[in-house]
């Protein structure tokens, strides 16, 4: 009985963490190449709105497949715009994604006009509540994304090159690696993953409202950093980020379960901040340990 309760809670936590995990996969690779993308929250908001507008019977009522395709393509486009500004405009990624974060918020507000979209096709809901062999569909999806990204990162030439570029950009250039292509890829890849996460998120929440995605980027970045990715590039684990995302979500759920009530959610952000700092300090320790080894 206890075990059932435990597993049930774990499952719920994991399901809640699905969007975070999916985007964290892509963001890990972005950070590995020494860039950052804080526009993922706003991007998710816009993509959700577009999805809602396209497929809701109360709006354009188009086929769900059209909606899915639009979300994925649009996500890739947003990512490419970010990437292009970084590699060709040579604008630091923090600025680019800070700018797109805002602009997308505006676009989202423009599209929604403060309203909500509640009528969604039931097929979409399947992703959120459906189960196969007792396990929610969204978890299968997440597992595919995580395993796929992990394989990409560790077992493909592209993946290794990403780590190389982040580890030592000059040497990467000398080795003939194209920083432009690699970085465009990670941003676009993250954009597509944001699209996937949007699908998962909307199918769970079933309501599209203006605040969707607010603060999401912070959670994802926390998961990425806590999961062992170094902000200095070259080092990072997709699986680690996924686990960290689950842990963070677990902490949040624990706070609620402990009956701290309303205040629990209020302290959540503070804890996030603390997590980031801890993650960075650990990274610092690892780097200084390496420096000592090298000097010896």
């Amino acid at each position, binding site marked *: 009985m206890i075990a059932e309760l435990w597993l049930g809670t774990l499952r719920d936590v994991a399901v809640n963490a699905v969007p975070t995990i999916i985007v964290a996969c892509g963001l890990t690779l972005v950070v590995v190449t020494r860039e950052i993308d804080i526009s993922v929250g706003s991007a998710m908001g816009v993509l959700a709105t577009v999805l809602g507008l396209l497929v809701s019977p109360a709006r354009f009522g188009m086929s769900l497949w059209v909606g899915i395709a639009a979300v994925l393509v649009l996500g890739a486009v947003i990512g490419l715009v970010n990437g292009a500004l970084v590699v060709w405009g040579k604008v630091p990624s923090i600025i680019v994604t800070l700018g797109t974060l805002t602009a997308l918020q505006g676009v989202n507000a423009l599209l929604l006009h403060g309203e909500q979209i509640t009528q969604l096709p039931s097929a979409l809901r399947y992703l959120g509540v459906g189960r196969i062999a007792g396990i929610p569909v969204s978890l299968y999806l997440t597992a595919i994304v995580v395993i796929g990204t992990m*394989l990409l990162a560790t*077992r*493909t*030439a592209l993946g*290794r*090159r990403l*780590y*190389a570029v*982040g*580890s*030592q950009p*000059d*040497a*990467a*250039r*000398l*080795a*003939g*690696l194209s920083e432009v292509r690699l970085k465009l890829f990670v941003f676009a890849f993250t954009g597509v993953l944001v699209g996937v996460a949007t699908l998962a998120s909307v199918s769970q929440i079933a309501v599209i409202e203006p605040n969707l995605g607010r603060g999401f980027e912070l959670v994802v970045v926390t998961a990425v950093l806590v999961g062992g990715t*170094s902000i200095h*590039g*070259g*080092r990072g684990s997709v699986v680690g980020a996924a686990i960290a995302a689950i842990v963070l979500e677990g902490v949040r759920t624990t706070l609620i379960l402990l009956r701290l009530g309303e205040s629990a959610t209020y302290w959540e952000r503070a804890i996030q901040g603390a997590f980031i700092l801890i993650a960075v300090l650990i990274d610092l320790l690892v780097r200084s340990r*390496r420096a000592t*080894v*090298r*000097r*010896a």
Partner: protein
Amino acid sequence: MVAIPRNNAEGGAGDGVRAGVGRGLEVDGLAKSYGGVHALSGVSLAVRPGQVHALVGENGAGKSTLIKIISGVVSPDAGAVSMNGTPIPLGHVTLSQQAGVATIHQESTAFPDLNAIDNLFVGREQGMRRGGLLLDRRRMREQTIAALAELGEHVDVDRPLAELPLASRQMIAIARALSQQCTVLILDEPTASLSEPEGEALFRAMQTLRMRGIGMLYVSHRLAEIFALSDVTTVLRDGQVVAHRPTAEFTEASLIQSMVGREIAPLVPKSAHDTVHDTPSDGATTVTPPARDEPMLLVTGLTREPAFRDITLQVRPGEVVGLAGLVGAGRSEVARAVFGIDRQTRGEVRVAGQTLTPGSVPEAVAAGVALVPEDRQHLGLVLPMSVRENLLLVVLRRLAKFWIRPRAIERTLVQELSASLAIRPAGPDLRADALSGGNQQKVVLGKWLATKPRVLVLDEPTRGVDVGAKAELYRLIRQLAGEGMATLLISSDLPEILALSDRVLVMRQGMLAGELPRAEATEERILALAMPADIALRERVAS
């Protein structure tokens, strides 16, 4: 130690060499200038397959420029490079690599966060894919272990390079170069930071390469290695080839002579200012010896592993103490610790009797220490700022009245400094990066002279400086010494050390190897003190 057979074949046109094949790397008439300073002029040489070609010369002789051109980092102003008869397009690193040129730099340009396997294969994963997408990591692993074993290296190929010793990292870099089917391997001072056994492992690896028919261009300051390993030696001096012979035809003395031999006189004019240190044979000196008893700078037991250990030295007012040694001996690191940029782990620094807190630059400067760093462009100056701002940067607070900058006083000071140091062109509002190397150095010096220091530490003050400015700087240094400045002069330019120093200290691998008073100091003696365990190595290696 395996005896290394010599390959003295020079391969001239009539040597039965077919056009193209087997000629190796040929460099013809390379020239490169940086803002008026000729880094290279008319340099030609050849590295034949299976041959170890040594490239020697002092710092500033043009070795690194030559290597940069061959490896494609920099384009020359004139000249050509070809591999086996085919010209290599210059200025593109990937093209040089494709032509078969691989370079091992001193600080290996590898990926510290990746392991040996990735370092070997990144960028050239062809043939390692299974099913067209995923990498066959098992095969990659096996090949990496094999490639390293061939070089005598047995490291953990799964650990990130940052956790491996420098010597292993170099081996991995070499293995990567080999796997790229290079024809010629350039090694730029590979042993500078290696211990003896690590160096020997490298030499064994080079033997393997030689047997594979790979030509090597070996740059080193360590003459013992030159004699032990190389077949042919080229000597560069002031950007030109001054000697090019089979190594066996050199003696240590003749090699050093080629490296350094030049007229010393024009650089150190004997003028009225210079009466302080005429040669002893002169007998009568007309000025009282400036060296008083209490040292201005006293360093005791200074240690900062692994850069240097137990350094004890003193500099008296009016004295110029030269600090000589090979690259990597730890001289600059000592200077940095004295100045407070780095914190020493043991030992103390005293200026005029006052002990300095380790690691505090403002305190050292307040006590009267000034450091003109080796890297003038990145450490000595803030290039985008104006000459005026650079000159004033350190003394701003001192000059300020109630925190306000006094325009008139600042202007006068800048004018005085510009004039007395002859900084050209004379516009103080010019950006510092618009000046030539020599004038930039004068700005750095001026910035420090404005603080009226008592101890002046100079680290390679005339590197990349043209002859005219050099002479001016020498005159200035002697003049300052005459006025009581305690000067510590770090230099790899031996005639410079000999011309300016009252005493010469020699560092070797982080420790003080010896001291030579002016009368006994010669270049040969300095080099002999500076070079590590040469005789034993030479004897072991000689066929």
